[in-house]
């Protein structure tokens, strides 16, 4: 599948390969800093969740590193473009290595598909480079013939460690 543009689904129900390609494409768009296209992969009611605790179940009454709706994600994307975003002068860059996403569940009747993807993520700026390891769970559904992210959950292997700035997206 071409990574340049989003390919429409061939049928109403996505194949496993289409789910996998979608997850891989999301990481690629982040790495290539195509953030507007990246945001389009999210449903309007989507959340990006990065828990703070190991095996965290509650995003509301337990703190998270990130638990952001599309408004907050779009604010991040706008901020990255800002002329006075000094923490991005110079800009950060990032790099994803994905294990092949596994399709954990598929329920066409409920329009709900879940994938699980172990990743290594490198974020770098100036002379600093940090390596993170995480498991990413995508909850996907089909909207108007296209896959969309309803929930992206990023479980860092060291979620409770003290970190410096993490400025981009895993």
């Amino acid at each position, binding site marked *: 599948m071409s990574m340049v543009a989003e390919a429409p689904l061939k049928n109403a129900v996505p194949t496993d390969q289409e789910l996998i390609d979608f997850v891989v494409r999301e990481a690629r768009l982040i790495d290539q800093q195509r953030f507007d296209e990246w945001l389009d992969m999210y449903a309007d009611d989507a959340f990006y969740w*990065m828990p*703070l*605790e190991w095996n965290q179940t509650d995003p*509301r*009454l*337990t*703190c*998270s*590193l*990130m*638990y952001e*709706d599309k*408004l*907050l994600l*779009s*604010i*991040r994307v*706008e*901020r990255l473009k*800002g002329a*006075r*975003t*000094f*923490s*991005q002068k110079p800009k950060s860059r990032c790099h994803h290595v994905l294990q092949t996403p596994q399709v954990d569940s598929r329920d066409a009747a409920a329009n709900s598909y879940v994938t699980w993807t172990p990743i290594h993520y490198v974020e770098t700026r100036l002379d600093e480079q940090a390596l993170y390891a995480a498991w990413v769970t995508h909850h996907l559904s089909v909207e108007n013939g296209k896959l969309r992210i309803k929930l992206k959950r990023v479980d860092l292997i060291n979620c*409770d*460690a*003290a*970190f*410096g*700035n*993490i*400025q981009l997206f895993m």
Partner: protein
Amino acid sequence: MTRYAGNAAAIRSLVRDQEVHRDVYVSEEVFQLEMEHMFPNSWVYVGHDSQVPNAGDYYGTTIGTQPVLLVRHTDGTVKVLHNRCPHKGTRITSETCGNTGKFFRCPYHAWSFKTDGSLLAIPLKKGYENTGFEQSHAATGMAPVRHVKNYRGFVFAKINDGGLGFEEFFGESLSSFDNMIDRSPVGQLKVAGGVLRYMHNCNWKMLVENQTDTCHPMVAHESSAGTVVDVWKKAPPGTKKPMAVEIIAPFMSPYEFFENMGIRIWDNGHGHTGVHHSIHSDYSAIPGYFEKMTAAYGEERAKAILGENRHNTVYFPNIMIKGPIQLLRQFKPIAANKTLVESWTFQLVDAPDMLLERTLMYNRLINAPTSIVGHDDLEMYERAQEGLHSNGNEWVNIQRLYSPDEAGQTNVAVNGTSEWPMRHQFRAWTKFMTMGM
């Protein structure tokens, strides 16, 4: 080369009325002296007693760079113990928190200690007979920190015998803790939600100063809060303002807002911003909360408690609290150029969950290593830590709205953009650095 050790005059010379020498931020020697003198001479926040509710519960932390344990003793009181075995120095616990039962047991040679630190047993005790062991340092067990105060759940400790008593050290500043605690209908807080830990490559005092720096938000946070304001402007008219926008947008308030909010100065480096109003003043009401407060305190008192909108209260040396959103940040020194920032949150016991939800949202939007507001600040601290190595100017300026008669004044409210709190913190810094030197 030592310049400052045992030299109180040299330390005093680092702090002038309107400027401080860069060595207070960059010198490893000054940092070591802070750990040897200033932190042990001060009342330092250790933890909250809700972290150790049951006998044997412990929580490991640091005072300055010294490892200590907060522990609930069998008699129900909380103790603060140095976290090292008196035998070989092994740290007794490595997990941050847990329950040790009736006694601590060192994992190296099985020496055991009661939860007040006293020595309980040593294997093969006979080997110490007739060796004068009773007179050894080791015989006293895990050394307790002798000066501990549990103030309405907030536990402070002072390592040195010298210095000031708890009440004298904090004085009227405890009113900010009172207000935060009184916001619970039953006057009780509980640590909740987890702690955010954020590593900063800068001196710990830069963070403390920043808590009362009201001339930076509209500048340094233009990238984050300014973007929030811009994006929110595009929302269709009539859209309900989300909690996240209520939280971040006020960082873009104009200079006049911060000038008029006021700053209060107390003794010993303590003080708070937001005398009259603050960025927390205009949050939406949480359904059912005011009714609970009124039932508990009566309407007049409930209004008085909730009418306080103190912004940041700094407690010298290294914490700040936000009463209106039940948050405490501790700036833990690691090296002259390295600081661990811990941001703790509290649940108001018997208040609606929505308050904790807002507190946690505030914490992750502002204080997380993934926070865009945090990114703005850390960039400035790290640039300062690097810039201070320039020999073009060895001094940092803190003279905004300076007045020659301010030293010695206490409990005064001044213009909200004054750098008086920073001057005040450095007066306290000199006092507790050189005390007993």
